[in-house]
């Protein structure tokens, strides 16, 4: 497979115990990632060696989770096509599509033919 696999040694965090409730598989930027069921997307990405979760709208600086409790908004990612989701407040699900967010998020604009002038 032509995907860049993340080396587990690069991960800042490792899992302490075997999850009792099984695991799920989600995708980050198209790459499959497994994670214990019930944990947050932020925890899953950190355990899988994801560095920056997004870049900032102002200076394009890389960011990753800081607070893990929903107050800092630095863990914003795209989840199943929805931009700016707080990864630390979102629980992993099988088949979930998570994407890194570059700069400002954009609103999904109406496709041609739907009317509204721009």
């Amino acid at each position: 497979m032509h995907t860049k696999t993340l080396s587990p040694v690069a991960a800042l965090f490792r899992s302490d115990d075997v999850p009792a409730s099984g695991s799920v598989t989600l995708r980050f930027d198209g790459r499959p990632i497994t994670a214990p069921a019930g944990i947050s997307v932020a925890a899953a990405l950190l355990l899988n060696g994801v560095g920056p979760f997004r870049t900032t709208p102002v200076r394009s600086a890389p960011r990753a989770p800081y607070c893990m409790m929903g107050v800092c908004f630095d863990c914003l990612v795209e989840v199943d096509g929805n931009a700016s989701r707080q990864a630390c407040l979102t629980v992993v699900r099988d088949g979930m599509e998570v994407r890194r967010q570059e700069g400002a998020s954009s609103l999904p604009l109406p496709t041609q033919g739907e009317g509204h002038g721009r």
Partner: protein
Amino acid sequence: MDADIVDLIIVGAGPAGLAAACEARKWGLGVTLLDEQGATGGQIYRAVDAASAKRRSVLGEDYAAGAELTAAFAGSGARHIAGAAVWNVGRDLKVNYVQGGANRVLQARQIVLASGAMERPFPIPGWTLPGVMGAGAAQILYKSAGALPTDPVVLAGCGPLLYLLASQYLHAGARLKAVVHTTQRRDYVRASSHLAGALLGWRDLRKGIRMLGELRRNGVPVYAGAEGFSIEGADRAEAFCFTYKGSRKRIESSLVLLHQGVVPNTQLSWSLRAKHRWNDAQLCWEPETDEYGQIEASGIYVAGDSRGIVGAKASASQGRLAALAIATKLDRPGRDQRLARESEVRDELRNQLHIRPFLDALYRPPAAHRMPPEDSVIVCRCEEVTAGQIRKYVELGCQGPNQTKAFGRCGMGPCQGRLCGLTVTELIAGARGVPHDDVGYYRIRPPIKPVTIGELAGLV
């Protein structure tokens, strides 16, 4: 269901919220508790019901004891709405929240806000780099996901949580590269005037001493009285730097966990336009309330750390007190028994608060880590506004945090000022040389949690 009026709506499932719910149920009140997480416990007892025996043992008996509270709540008959992001609480006692993409509103007779605490911002060079997190954040990662640092980690700052996490990591088998803390002689001198109170709270004191001894026995390098923290790295943390005994030290690490105490999460009380005052011992804002935690005569009570930092046990007591006051206000039978119960709860609260002034004095974060002297340090993480820019705004006539928005969008990003508000208040008060109460805070407006236009449109 949504059209029904609930006797009591509680926001937050930490110790204050859970205890308030259990107490209110005892006196026959209908209770609905809303919380952002999937399970009860708040951050302090995060995932306590799901935690394995090993995890509970690593986290210690104070954590494991939280399971009594979550179990009491589960059996109380209160309704628990999990995964609910409360984005507005109104003076009309309506509560708006989003759950699973659906927007809902509930009407209450009375409300208890128990939104808890968050870690104090730590604005130093490099604090926005990936690989820099709160120690509390790392503790949440362990509680909720069993995640431990892969490589030896640096813990830096001050406060009980820093040593607690260090001790828990040792028990869990994670390695510590160094513990660097800022507490120095002048802090002990300041704290010594509160020693009598600390001795009354000797259990907590002994726990702290035991943890420091543990670090020493395990050969963890401890740098006491360090200052001038910074983190080096191009696009991620590479090294932690500090000044120790007059010389500059550099410790390579890809993960740096910072902590300098916790502060009240006041977003909801500010959004209600409640009057807040600056607490100079705890260096934070707290809402003005009556002795039961009620904001003016609003029917809205604040309990626990969101009313001022008191810790988990005292938070639970405050939750009980608010519930007792509410039961009496709503004319529930048993007024005399409640008076007896109230004096019991007040006694336990007094005992729990003995050690607080000592802790506040001993672990007062140094000024340079609250009001960065380096102009280039980012203060507002969202809009990337620096300390130098804030000082420049003041030179140009900026009077308070609210005006910094017009000067440079400070505090206008997704976190709504949560991570910069205290820093901006302190920077402006310092630069203007006026009391914090004169400088004020941001005007916080609902929605206080992100809500999409689609979710708003679906409001019923």
